[in-house]
């Protein structure tokens, strides 16, 4: 009889402890979401251009303004478009990697000199080294807009059919080069 009474007292208590755990559970779920959020970079906006044809352009070459270059001239090969400028600070960060990549001659690199003075751009390349097969001049940034450029440096991988397959926002890192860009380039070159 006495046990019965004890049970009837404990029963609602147990229910209320369960209810107390609900906010804790919600909190844990919230923290999990926030932690995942911390690992992501809000500046990296996925490009809608991935898988689509690279926007066409015909731009003057930086070192030889009499000549032009555009994606149409590069059809049939895998190539990289690297958006750079002499005023761009983080371009210096990735530049040594680009120089190394340029030396290997694995893949042609086209530089898009974005919103820059051609003279300043050329001086920058003499000072820091020129990893580009060709650089073209996008003086007013119109081609940059077509390619969805919003933060220099940016690097695009274009396949043999002229479609954009990958976009690196911000400086190329050794990790991105080794785990993403180079494997993708090799795979695309085989196909």
């Amino acid at each position: 009889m006495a046990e019965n009474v004890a049970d009837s007292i404990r029963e609602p208590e147990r229910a209320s402890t369960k209810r107390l755990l609900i906010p804790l559970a919600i909190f844990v779920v919230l923290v999990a979401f926030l932690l995942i959020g911390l690992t992501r970079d809000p500046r990296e906006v996925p490009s809608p251009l991935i898988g689509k044809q690279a926007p066409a352009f015909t731009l003057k070459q930086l070192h030889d303004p009499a000549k032009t270059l555009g994606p149409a001239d590069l059809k049939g090969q895998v190539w990289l478009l690297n958006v750079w400028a002499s005023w761009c600070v983080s371009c210096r960060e990735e530049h040594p990697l680009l120089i190394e990549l340029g030396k290997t001659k694995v893949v042609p690199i086209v530089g898009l000199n974005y919103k820059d003075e051609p003279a300043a751009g050329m001086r920058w390349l003499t000072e820091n080294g020129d990893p580009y097969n060709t650089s073209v001049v996008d003086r007013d940034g119109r081609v940059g807009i077509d390619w969805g450029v919003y933060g220099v440096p940016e690097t695009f991988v274009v396949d043999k059919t002229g479609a954009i397959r990958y976009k690196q926002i911000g400086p190329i890192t050794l990790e991105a080069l080794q785990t993403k860009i180079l494997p993708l380039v090799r795979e695309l070159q085989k196909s």
Partner: protein
Amino acid sequence: MKRLLLVLIVVAIALSPILLLAVAVPTEKDPVAAARAVALSEKLRCLVCQNQTIADSNAELAADLRRQIHEQIAAGKSDKEIVDYMVARYGDFVLYQPPVKSTTLLLWAGPALLVLVGFIVLARTVRARRARPATPEMSAEERERAARLLRGDTAKDAS
């Protein structure tokens, strides 16, 4: 003759700011187009400083995109065409008001869903409180035992 020349020079200097102003405001000639451009640039997000519209932002990209809007309006493009142009290049993220899609459904339905859950919890709590009697009922045996405990007679209760 010299005096006349002097007067001419003074007048030219006095007028020059007005002449400059007239050159600097070509888009304001058409107030409708200007209003459209402002309305459009307030709907689009600047990707450099992500919490500003391209109307608010001083970033170079925002200025370039505003120029694009002006040029496209001048070229006779509709608002939808201009917005589509931006979305094609920068994705749905440029829109301050994201479109309703399968991927954004939770975003749009989220607040309503939360209100719904809130109402359900409220209704259940109220019902449970109503169902519970104000003072818990005691059986005759429990009353007897309570009375015994109050008298200080604990010997029989030890179990």
